C-alpha cells in the first residue's frame, strides 16, 4: 500500500508477516508474535509490530528498545486513538519509526507528525484520490499551533523566544 512521509512518497521496505515467519530483512509482525519474533531474532532481521488502536502503549514497553517500527492502525479517519498511542510511545522513549496505517486524510497529516508519527500508509483508493502533493501541502498549512510538546514549532515557545529577545 502507498506510503508517505513528510518529504513525500516513500518505498515500503517492510514485509508484513504476522507470525514473523517470513525470511526478509525487515519483518512486520502481529502484536501476539512480537515477543517470539524478537526472542528468536538471531538472523539480524529488523522487527516491527503492527498493532490495533486498542493495544495499550504500555504493553509494548518491554520491547520498545528492540523494535525498529511500530505501525498503529487507524480503522477510520475519525478514530483518533492512534494519535494518543503515538504520543505515549514517544513518552515511553520509543526512538524507532512510527507509522499510521489506515484511511487518514491529508488534513490529519500535520497532526500525525506532531504526535510523533514519521509516516502514513494509505489504502490504494485513498492515495489515488488524495495525491502526495496534497499531503505535503496540507502538512504545511498551519505554520505554528499552540501546543507545547507537539513538534518544534509552537506559538508558546515562539512567544517565549520573542520575550527573551526583547529583554
Amino acid at each position, binding site marked *: 500500500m502507498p506510503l508517505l512521509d513528510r518529504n513525500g512518497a516513500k518505498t515500503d521496505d517492510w514485509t508484513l508477516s504476522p507470525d514473523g515467519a517470513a525470511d526478509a530483512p525487515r519483518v512486520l509482525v502481529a502484536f501476539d508474535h512480537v515477543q517470539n519474533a524478537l526472542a528468536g531474532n538471531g538472523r539480524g532481521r529488523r522487527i516491527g509490530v503492527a498493532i490495533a488502536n486498542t493495544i495499550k502503549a504500555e504493553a509494548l514497553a518491554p520491547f520498545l528498545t528492540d523494535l525498529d517500527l511500530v505501525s498503529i492502525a487507524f480503522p477510520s*479517519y*475519525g*478514530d*483518533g*486513538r492512534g*494519535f*494518543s*498511542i503515538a*504520543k*505515549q510511545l514517544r*513518552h515511553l522513549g520509543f526512538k524507532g519509526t512510527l507509522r499510521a496505517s489506515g484511511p487518514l*486524510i*491529508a*488534513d*490529519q497529516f*500535520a*497532526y*500525525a507528525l*506532531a*504526535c510523533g508519527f514519521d509516516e502514513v500508509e494509505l489504502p490504494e483508493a485513498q492515495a489515488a*484520490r*488524495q*495525491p502526495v502533493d*496534497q499531503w505535503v*501541502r*496540507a502538512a504545511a*498549512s*498551519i*505554520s*505554528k*499551533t*499552540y*501546543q*507545547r*510538546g*507537539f*513538534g518544534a514549532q509552537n*506559538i*508558546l515557545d*515562539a*512567544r*517565549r523566544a520573542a*520575550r527573551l529577545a526583547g529583554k
Partner: protein
Amino acid sequence: MYRYDEFDARFVRERVAQFRDQVARRLDGALNEDEFKPLRLKNGVYLQLHAYMLRIAIPYGTLSSRQLRQLALIGEKYDRGYGHFTTRTNMQFNWPRLRDVPAILDLLADVEMHCIQTSGNCIRNVTADHFAGVAADEIEDPRPTAELIRQWSSLHPEFDYLPRKFKIAVTGSAQDRAVIKAHDIGLRILRNAKGEIGYEVMVGGGLGRTPMIAKTIRSFLPKDELLAYLESVLRVYNLEGRRDNKYKARVKILVHEIGAETFSRLVEEEYARLDGPSIVADPEEVARIAAYFASPHYEKLPARSAAFEKGKAKNRAFATWAAVNLFAHKIPGYAAATISLKAIGEAPGDVTCAQMRVLADLAQQYSFDELRITHAQNVVLPHVEQDDLLAIWQTLVEAGLATANAGLITDIIACPGLDYCSLATARSIPIAQALAHRFADQKRQLDIGELNVKISGCINACGHHHVGHIGILGLEKSGKESYQITLGGDATLNAAIGENLGPGLAAQDVPDAIERIVDVYLAHRQNGESFIESVRRLGLEPFKAVIQEKLHAPA
C-alpha cells in the same frame, strides 16, 4: 479584552486559507462528503433543515463593539438580517451559502474572530461566567484561564478526533453562573488553605439523552499545572472513551461506567508520566494573557447615583427594568445590565442586525467597548455607570430591547428546534413564544419571581431543559409533537437534573400545564421562598397531580 498578537492573527488567517483549500478539494473530489463533513463542522458549518448554518465562536461570551458590528455586517450581507445567540454563547447564522463561507471567515478574521471548533468531535468553545470581572464574589477572573484553554485546544494535534464533542466551562466565583457541572470539564477557581490559586476539576457532566452532574476528580490543581493536567484528562478520554455508540461516547458515560475514582486514578497515572513543565504555559505567558483582562479604568463614583434614583422614581417601567435586569457591580456607582433577547413573542436569542449595532454603540459609549453573551441567550453590558442607566434604557426601549424579564419566567432558553434544526423532533420556538405570551403580564412575572424555563426540541438537550427549574422536552410520538415536562432542575453549584412529571403533552396544552405548575407554587410558597425552593420542599407530587388533571381534562 484579549487582542490577537501576530501569532494569533497568522494562525486564524492560515486556518481560513486551509478551509478554502478544503472546500476546493471537496469540489474536485479529492475529499468525499464523509471526509469533508468533519472538516466543515470544525469550521462551524452545519447542514440544517433548509440551508447551511454557520456557527461563530464567541470565546467565553466576550465581544467588542467592533466585533458585534462586524457580525451585523455579515448578517446583512450574507444572511437575512438577523443572528441567533446560542447556549454556548456562540452566534449562529441560519442562511449563509457554502460558497460564501470562506469570505465570511475572512471578515471574522479581520476582527479577531473565527469559527474554529464550534462543532465536531473536538474541544468546543470555552465558556465562562458572564459576570466575570464584575461579580463581587469573584476569586479570580475566569477569562484568562478560558483564553489559555481556547488557544491550547485550537487545532490540538492529539485531540481533534475525540470520541465525541467536549465542552469546558470556567467559573471564578463562589456562585456558578456558567453551569460548570453540566460540562465535560468544569473548572472552579478557588484558593487553598495557603492562599494559592488553583482549580477544582470536575469531569463528566453533560445534558443530552443521559444527563449527568460532573464529579470532582481533583479538589485542588495548582494554577500553573492546568494545561498538563488537561492533556492527561483528554488523553484518557481519547483512549478510553467509547466509540462503538455515538450516544455513549461522551466522557460522562466513561466516568459513569468506570466510576469517578477509577477515572481520576487513570488521569493521575497519566499525569505522573508527563513532563509537566514542558507542556504548561510559562507564568509570563499566563500573565501576558491576564493583562488583557485587567479592570477598565473606572471612575470614582458615589455608591448611590442621584440621577439613577431620580429616574426610577419618575419612571415606573425604568424602575422595573432596573430592579429585574441589573446585577450588582463590584465597583461603587457601576452596574452590569442584562439586555434581554426574550421580548414577548420573539424567538429567544434572536437579534437583528440593527439591534446588534444599537448594542455595539451602547457598549462603546457606556461600557468600555465591551459586551458579554450569556448562556441564557441574553447580552450583558458589563460596566455601566448608574448615572447612564436611564439613557441606556431609553435607547433600548426604542430598539425593542428593554424587556424587563432577566431570570423571570419569560426569560426562556430555547434551542432553534424543528424550525431550523435537522436533529430536532419538535418545535421549541413556538412553545417559548406561547409561554411568553401567557405570562406576559409584568406584575405577574414579578410576583412569580425567579423561574428558569428551558426548552429543547430533541433529546440532545441544547436548550438545557434538564437543568431548568421547569424543563420542556419536545419529542415526536406517532407523528405528533409531544412535550415532556420536568421539574426541579438546577444549573448552579447545587446542580440537579429535573424529574419527569409524566407523559408528554400536546403543544397547545403546554402553556396551561405550566400555568398550573406555577399556580401550585403560588398557592404553597412560604416565607418568600423561590419557585425552586418550593419545589425542593414540596417534592414532585403536587405538581404531578396537576399535569395528570391536564392530561385527562376534556378538550
